[in-house]
């Protein structure tokens, strides 16, 4: 019976998600392909391994590490965890939108098993779409990407889902104050077919009716989101495997029965892995990703609807050839077709025959990439080099060379250097830094040229104390070309001439990242410090003078410590500090009395010339294993987290206004959270 239910759930999956997409074959996949097709669990990027990888800016977190971190609202979140790493910054308080090495949020390519996710956030950015139960690991390339990857300037975040149990039916889940989740996994056909399906639902909105005596409008509103993930792994033969993964997630908000707003992500991957010989493997993938949002409402005789969507279909083939123990050659191609309908609104009024609306013409594009790379290792020297050629609609093309070298010049010490060039053909036309769902993506056009970035990095990595500790220092300098920014008072929303609201120029970013990390022992974690600057120079903005980008936050410190008190109690703490975010503030005021009454208007003369107050926050968490450290058939624990322990009022927004009583101008700081306690019960069987 249990298996029937499981099969039924899996069978239902394609109805829910109607596509297939595919992940890139990463290093861990290559490991899996060697010899047999047995699963090899991927562990964190070990301290030893990090010494001889020529790539710089490569960060990897396992789900075990992520789960140890304190969480906001009790929701363990992979993106929030990555924001604890050097060079990665949240764009605003509690937001899933992030900046890597001074880049904009749209310069990060987020992949879920290889499929592009266009909006990785729920509930206006406070939660990411990644249910921690289904994640195996998350790898972040902070700029020095391998030639097999591309399409964004700043980073690639690869979130890989777990393989699933081939032994017996397993399950795990969690119950929190505002959301719960569950995962079921097991073999459908022993040693042939395994599957899992997981879901998460956010139900804070169901408590809103209890507010009917406080706010009737709010009490009649609805608010929820959900995620469903599923994966099938089929062993077709000793040399062929097939993986199908899918994701469906959405947000639903309804205001007092008058209007509703929904946005959703769907993605799917179908990947076929074939071993041609013991030196030659082929991975073939079909990819798809869909993002859409709809807003609709009716008020008496007036009704309206707003729809927008992105459809992304991809095909990818990658060949891996290992001619000898010193070389590992990869080559392949990637095709991507995108259809973007960035805004379609319609308003109807009873009694008026014609409807009114704005329809932004749909655009479609074909992005193609050919790539080849080789990883070499001779003694103490490790090399990686490659070339990616990318094309957009046969109009734009770029050659993107990538190269890196690591020299383990002394025992447990290595020096690294790398160069990479990246190109980006799709841009996010959004002024929000907080992860608004109203994303408008725009493919490069004659007025909006592709952005490119050249990055050089150097680094030093040293392991010490029996590989228990690792210290690393990385420096980078980035030159950005055709980097886009909004002109003053840009009109972005539903503007069919949105190109005219954007200006292009050049940018630069540079920084140094220090990190001391310990992955073994009772006390684990890291301490990192980042010095990072990011500037833009664009004609028409800031009078053509160089200005700070919104990601220019010179100093940041991240500390994460976990202490395993005994077999059943883990205590962890994080502390983050960052220089305040640049923003535009008025230098003067003037009055406009034209319509009768004087109104004080702030006068702005420069872009991002001021900074919000510095950001810092302490979070604590304690996890109690209710089986007191003994593995049983049913394992469960309770996690208690405190977010923002010392109630720092971190600025989410700074506004300037005239006090209606004193008629004096004043600055108003808006903060979102004081201390946020949460408790989550987690279960696995």
């Amino acid at each position, binding site marked *: 019976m249990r298996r029937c239910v499981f099969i039924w759930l899996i069978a239902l999956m394609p109805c829910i998600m109607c596509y297939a997409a595919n992940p890139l074959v990463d290093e861990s996949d290559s490991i899996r392909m060697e010899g047999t097709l047995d699963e090899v669990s991927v562990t964190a990027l070990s301290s030893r391994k990090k010494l001889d990888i020529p790539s710089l800016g490569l960060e990897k977190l396992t789900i075990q590490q992520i789960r140890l971190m304190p969480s906001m609202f009790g929701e363990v979140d992979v993106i929030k965890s990555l924001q604890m790493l050097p060079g990665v910054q949240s764009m605003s308080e509690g937001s899933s939108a992030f900046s890597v090495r001074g880049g904009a949020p749209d310069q990060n390519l987020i992949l879920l098993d290889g499929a592009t996710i266009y909006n990785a956030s729920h509930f206006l950015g406070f939660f990411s779409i990644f249910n921690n139960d289904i994640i195996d690991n998350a790898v972040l390339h902070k700029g020095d990407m391998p030639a097999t990857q591309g399409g964004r300037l700043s980073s690639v975040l690869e979130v890989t889902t777990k393989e699933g149990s081939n032994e017996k039916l397993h399950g795990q889940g969690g119950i929190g104050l505002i959301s719960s989740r569950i995962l079921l996994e097991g073999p459908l056909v022993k040693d042939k077919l395994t599957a899992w399906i997981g879901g998460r639902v956010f139900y804070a909105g169901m408590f809103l009716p209890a507010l009917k005596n406080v706010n009737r409008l709010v009490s009649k509103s609805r608010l929820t989101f959900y995620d469903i993930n599923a994966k099938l792994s089929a062993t077709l033969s000793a040399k062929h495997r097939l993986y199908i993964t899918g994701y469906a997630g959405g947000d639903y908000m309804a205001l007092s029965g008058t209007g509703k707003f929904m946005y959703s992500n769907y993605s799917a991957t179908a990947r076929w892995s074939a071993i041609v010989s013991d030196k030659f493997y082929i991975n073939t993938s079909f990819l798809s990703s869909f993002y859409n949002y709809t807003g609709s409402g009716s008020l008496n005789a*007036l009704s309206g609807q707003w729809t927008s969507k992105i459809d992304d279909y991809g095909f990818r083939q990658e060949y891996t050839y290992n001619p000898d123990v010193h070389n590992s050659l990869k080559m392949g191609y990637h095709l991507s077709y995108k259809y973007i309908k960035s805004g379609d609104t319609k308003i109807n009024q009873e009694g008026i025959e014609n409807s009114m609306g704005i329809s932004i013409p749909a655009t479609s594009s074909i992005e193609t990439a050919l790539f080849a790379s080789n990883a070499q290792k001779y003694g103490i020297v490790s090399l990686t080099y490659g070339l990616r050629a990318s094309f957009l609609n046969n109009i734009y093309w770029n050659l993107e060379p990538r190269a890196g070298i690591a020299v383990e010049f002394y025992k447990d010490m290595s020096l690294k250097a790398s160069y990479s060039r990246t190109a980006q053909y799709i841009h996010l036309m959004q002024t929000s830094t907080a992860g608004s769902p109203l994303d408008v993506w725009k493919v490069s056009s004659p007025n909006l040229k592709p952005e490119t970035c050249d990055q050089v990095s150097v680094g030093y990595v040293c392991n010490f104390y029996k590989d228990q500790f690792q210290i690393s220092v990385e420096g980078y300098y980035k030159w950005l070309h055709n980097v886009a920014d909004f002109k003053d008072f840009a009109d972005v929303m539903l503007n069919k001439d949105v190109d005219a609201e954007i200006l292009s120029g050049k940018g630069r970013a540079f920084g140094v990242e220090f990190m001391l990390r310990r992955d073994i022992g009772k006390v684990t974690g890291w301490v990192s410090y980042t010095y990072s600057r990011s500037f833009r120079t664009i004609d028409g903005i800031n009078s053509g003078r160089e200005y700070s980008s919104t990601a220019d936050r010179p100093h940041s410190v991240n500390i994460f410590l976990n202490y395993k008190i005994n077999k059943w109690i883990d205590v962890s703490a994080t502390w983050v500090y960052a220089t305040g975010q640049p923003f535009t503030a008025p230098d003067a005021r003037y009055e406009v009395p034209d319509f009768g009454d004087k109104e004080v208007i702030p006068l702005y003369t420069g872009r991002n010339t001021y900074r919000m107050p510095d950001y810092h926050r302490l979070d604590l968490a304690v996890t109690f294993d209710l089986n007191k450290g003994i593995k049983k058939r049913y394992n469960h624990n309770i996690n208690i987290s405190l977010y923002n322990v010392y109630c720092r009022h971190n600025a989410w927004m700074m506004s300037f206004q005239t006090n209606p009583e004193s008629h004096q101008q004043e600055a108003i700081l808006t903060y979102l959270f004081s201390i946020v306690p949460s408790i989550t019960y987690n279960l696995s069987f």
Partner: protein
Amino acid sequence: MSRKSFVAIIWAILLTSCTEKYDFKLSTAPSRIVITGYVCNEPGQYAINISRTGGYFAADSLTDVPSADVYINDEKLTPCDTIPNRYLTRDDFCAADGEVYRLKVEIDFDGDGVNETYTAEAKTPYFVPLSGLLLQTLSNDSGGSQFPMTTLITFQDPKGIPCYYGAHLYLTTARDSADTYNRYHISNTPSKYCLGTTATDAIDGQFVFFPAYLISKRLLYHPLDTLTIYPNDTVEVELNCHTKEYFDFLSNCTSSASGSNPMFMVPAGPIQGNISGGAIGAFGVYTVSRKKAVVQYKEGSWTDEQMIKRFGVDWRKLFPKEESGR
């Protein structure tokens, strides 16, 4: 307290953002001259205002500028007796269709003993008449109050002509037992003024219906003064077609005044205007077309106390109770 209520209150507290006054240090840009004003296509007296910029947190007077000579098409304006640095046209000034109006201001703003000249010009834009005004209730509750409402305006946008629309809102109170009519200009500042454009061909040439203003039972008149709307009050909407430069100026002012918001943040910058010589501000011409609608009485929208205050104890004679089942 039930568990649901407890969780709901906790959730509401967590999600309710808080604000606090912050001692923020700003630099002060050098003072610049500000010139604003407009004329319309209906007879009246119009004003050109001259002032200067000041430190954002400073409490200094912004009208502390020297006197000036102000001209529109070589016709000299006269200084206003009651408001400093305001210059008025004759009281029957009327902008003609398609006419170009040139503003010239001569003033020694920098105090070097020599007058500087600031100029701007604007051409009367295409006149678009307002077709209709409907006070529409924004509620799906059949038995609910009629508030809030929207002023749904309708008009025909001319094909192929870029139009820059704005709409003013006025409220005229009904005569009551103790008072005469009062006409209030509700959209009395740029950020309370409704703007919309069809400059792109998004709705070019369409018959436009646009919910210009949202009206609750109380309308903000001044920051510390609100007006209560009663039945038989008259709502009046004035459709304006602006010159692009003045429209952009008003739009920039509105964006600047609304401040920054991480969710829908528009990057602010220097204000765009059409005054030459480095002055801030704009001079414009706009057309005017008006429609009125009377607020209807609806049972349950006003309390007895409110109705007595406005119409006296015999208010039921004016608004007899509707019989059920009618």
